[in-house]
């Protein structure tokens, strides 16, 4: 009983929170508002879809949540800690250990094989070669590409590349997955497969999944949708 209560409590625990999150860009003498004072709370294990038209601030929000960018005003709080208090190098460590990124164009390293791409984040984390090899095998099996371990990205299809991207995001057993339109460049069948894989992994590992998407069908499968327009939150 107490176990299930604590599990529920953990699930309801806020993992990411923003207060008055604001991001402006300077274009010459002009200042462009990308996000205008957002207050969001994301609970651990949630699948949050961020939607909105082009230029609404979706990717900006994702980058700020992932510590890739610095807000002009406001805070991003990860597990109770304000990200702005961390140095660039500490943020890199947080991204390496806590987060996994999946990019729209997968961004695999073109000169590394599929296995080496997956092992790269582990290597940054000083994981031993044996453990790296074992875990990359496991992840390749998970995404169904064990037979493509030694292929270079250019030898893989778009869908296969994205699945390797997912495996790479999971390499360091991240608790938060940040995905920026992971199926944006894929056909609908492959998109379905990728989203299916992601949701499956999320459930299996109780991950927090924050995904920017244009696809309302994908968003429909999320626990929560953040609708953005002109940098403002319309609904959450």
């Amino acid at each position, binding site marked *: 009983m107490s176990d299930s209560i604590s599990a529920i409590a953990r699930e309801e625990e806020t993992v990411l929170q923003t207060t008055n999150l604001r991001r402006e860009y300077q274009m010459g003498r002009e200042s462009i508002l990308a996000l205008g004072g957002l207050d969001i709370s994301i609970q651990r294990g949630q699948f949050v879809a961020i939607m909105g038209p082009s230029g609404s601030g979706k990717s900006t929000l994702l*980058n700020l949540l992932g510590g890739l960018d610095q807000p002009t005003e406001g805070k991003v709080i990860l597990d109770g800690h304000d990200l702005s208090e961390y140095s660039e190098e500490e943020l*890199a*460590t947080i991204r390496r*250990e806590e987060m996994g*990124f999946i990019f729209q164009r997968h961004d695999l390293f073109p000169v590394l094989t599929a296995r*080496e791409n997956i092992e790269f984040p582990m*290597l940054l984390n000083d994981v031993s070669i044996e453990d790296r090899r074992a875990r990359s095998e496991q992840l390749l099996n998970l995404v169904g590409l064990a037979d493509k371990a030694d292929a270079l990205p250019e030898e893989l299809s778009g869908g296969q590349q994205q699945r390797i991207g997912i495996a790479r995001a999971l390499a360091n057993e991240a608790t938060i997955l940040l995905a920026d339109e992971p199926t944006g460049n894929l056909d609908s069948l492959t998109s379905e497969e990728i989203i299916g894989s992601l949701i499956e992994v999320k459930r299996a590992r109780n991950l927090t999944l924050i995904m920017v998407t244009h696809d309302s069908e994908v968003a429909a499968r999320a626990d929560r949708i953040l609708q953005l327009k002109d940098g403002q939150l319309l609904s959450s």
Partner: protein
Amino acid sequence: MTLTYAWKLVTRNPRRTFTYLFGLALAVGLFSGILFFVDVTARQMTATAIAPVKIDIIAHGTKPDVNIADAAPTIANDRGVSAAEPVYAADFTSAVKLNGGHPSPAGRMFAIQPSYFQTFDVLQISEGTFDASGALISEAMAIAQNIKVGDSIQLAFGGVNNPVSLPVTGIINMDNADALFATATEAENAIVSDVVIVDQSWFRVNLLQPLTAVALDPNAIVIPGFIPLDPQIHIRINRDLLPGDPTLAAIHAESLRRGVERLFPGQLKSSDNLSGAFKAAKADVLSAKILFIFLGLPGVALAAYLSKFAAELFAESQRREISILRTRGATPAQITGIVAVTSVFLAIGGSALGLFFGILTLFASAGTQITSNLNPFGPNFDWNVFANSAAIAFAAGLVLTFLAAFLPTFGALRREITQERRTIRRVEAEPFWKRSYLDFILIGVAIISLYITQLNGGFKPSGNEGTAITLSVYIFLTPFFAWTGLTLLVLRLVEKGLAASSNQIGSFFRHLLGEIGEVAGKSLARRASRISAAVTIIALTLSFGVSLALFQKTYANEKQLDSQYIVGADIRFTPALNTPQGAGFATQLQHPGVVSVTGVARDPVALVGSEKNTVYGIDVASFRKTAYLPDSFFVDGNAQQTIDAMTNRSTKYAAGSAKQVLDALANTPDGVIISVEQAEKYNIRLGDPVLLRIYNRSTNQYTDVQTQAVGLFVYFPTSAQDSDFIINRDFMIKSSGYTAMNYFLIKTDGNPQTIANLTSNFTAQYKNVMPVRIQNIDTVVKTESSSLTSLNLSGLGAMERLYTIVVVSMGLAIFLLAMINERQREFGAMRALGANLNHLRRFLFTEALAIGGLSLVIGAGVGVLLARLLVLLLGVIFTIPAQTLSWPGLELLSLALFVVAGMVISVAIISRRLSTLKIVEALREL
């Protein structure tokens, strides 16, 4: 609109503009620097060539009664002439010191005006004064007859009944007076030791009339070479008006000479002493130009490639700008116009900056001595030559920009317009040269051209030291093809090597930089094509620095060896003919610091068959201890290889040794050692009897001397082209009846200071005792300064080294910058995945270390190869072609250190760029 937009493109992208301008300026700078250097050198070579010429033009009267006193002022007023002096020359049959002494051999009298001493730097009064009623006599004459100032001499002239007597009012030094002895008929000057100088007024009163009568008398007995009376006009031209180019200067001097004859048609026949010097300088300057351009041009090619690479760096951003322009409705013609005008702006700016760099590097590397001629405010500055070279360099900059910046952009633009697509990644098709194996073809052509040059005797030294040596332009084809072929082959091999050794490279860098090093190493191996381009460019730049340093050192060494060969030992001491010294005189030269001395006898009129030859007599025991005798001078005359080479007239003789040949001479009292050239000419083999006819001074007749060929040599110390037959000294003295030595060779402890001290001590000691000529390596190097062998390569070497360091450092910096630019997204993704700056830096270091390390190794290897090739090809300019390379250890080490330091600084600067990388912006990059 086009102009305005193009100007904005240039001014609003300062980083891009600066990078390109700098790249272009490097290429133009090196090119213009070399051109300026060649100009200055050519001017200097011309000036050096004519410096020893004391009298520019000598006009001889075609008849003894030509009135030179009237003609001289007319000539002096001619355009381009700065002075003219009338001079009478007449040979006397004897000169006797009154109240004692013996008659001297025949000598020559010169009658001059007092102003002659100011006009020409030919005669130096070492004692006494020039007096209108007295005579000056040469030092040699004074010493030989023990004549002092205040004594009187009596001179007798052939055909003149009454001898004339004159008080001696001074002694004159004739060291610079060789030009005085030129005659209207003889090309070579017959130097006379006993010389008397008198005032022309006295001469007119006392001797002119009777000597004119003798000279005009058709029945007078004519002794060959004897001058009864030679009226002359010595002319000094205005050298400031001479063009720097020796060809033009020669034409100028020739026209002045003709002008003199034109003024007095049929009365004067003039000879121009400058033309010989110009002829030598002309050939030398041409060779120097080819040599400099050949040595420097590859550096320019590499700098040019770098500027092309710098242009490529920004190709992507330029394409984006073009895309924006197109979306805003600009037509292809307008865009082409903008690209063209932008290129013109860049070309003009880069070329102008390059000219500035060129002058700066010349000043920095060549020093003020050589660059004094480049001072626009200086009197010698030649604006025409400067403008010519500057225009060539400027035009090169325009062409380079057209090729490096305009054409690639224009090509990309056309592709984009026609294909309507945008490529994200650079697609590199296998280049034509690789598909067609052009590298192997070029190396093959180089080998064939080398073989043909060798077959045609291209590498056989001409042997005339100190004069012009013609270098065929074809000789430069071999290194040109070899360099191009080697460049491409290195590119192919590095690429293949990198691609094939991904795991090994990864493992190497894992040991060096940890786990991330392995990934970086593998990544490097898989980008073999880009890396090999960087390695090739940097390695080849380095190879030129290395090869030039090696060549320069070998060149300097050869210059020393050539001089040592010409001198024969450290010092050569030659007594005058009128103060002959026997072999025993050697003991008087045994000063502290002298290791050994040997006297060498010489007979320049010996006969072999019916031809005149020079025979030398050496004392083998002391000669081998004293003379410069490298084994490479000798051949093994008994070897079948030598016999075959002599039969086939090739130069592939079997190597011999000094010991072998000199032992054979020492063991055979009537032995003779012969130059292979003469042995081939007279078909002599070892063991053959050789009949020499030596002039016997006791009997005044030729004596048949039977000798036996016991050894062969290619070169013999003391150089002279006539040292073809060498016999034992005792045997020679016995045969010639003449005990005097022609010269003495002196070996010292080898310390340059000792050599200099001994030279000055000997000069001081014998100054007033007997006339002597003392030569050492330094004096020979200085006097041979008109030839190619005395070219000062250090300025060019310094310039090339400076560029090696700059191009290598800049090259690495540009390649690393390109790597970061090209892989911004990749680095952005790495940062997003949690890589810290340290991880990224290790990627950069891996790349820098691989490029730098490979470049150093390959550059050193190719540099040594190139230096060997250069020494082989350009060895012909020395009397003794270099056998091996001379290694400038300290210079190579400092070059390596500077290069490494340059690389480290480049990496440090570029790694700062990584720390400013914005992850979000990098991930947004197309």
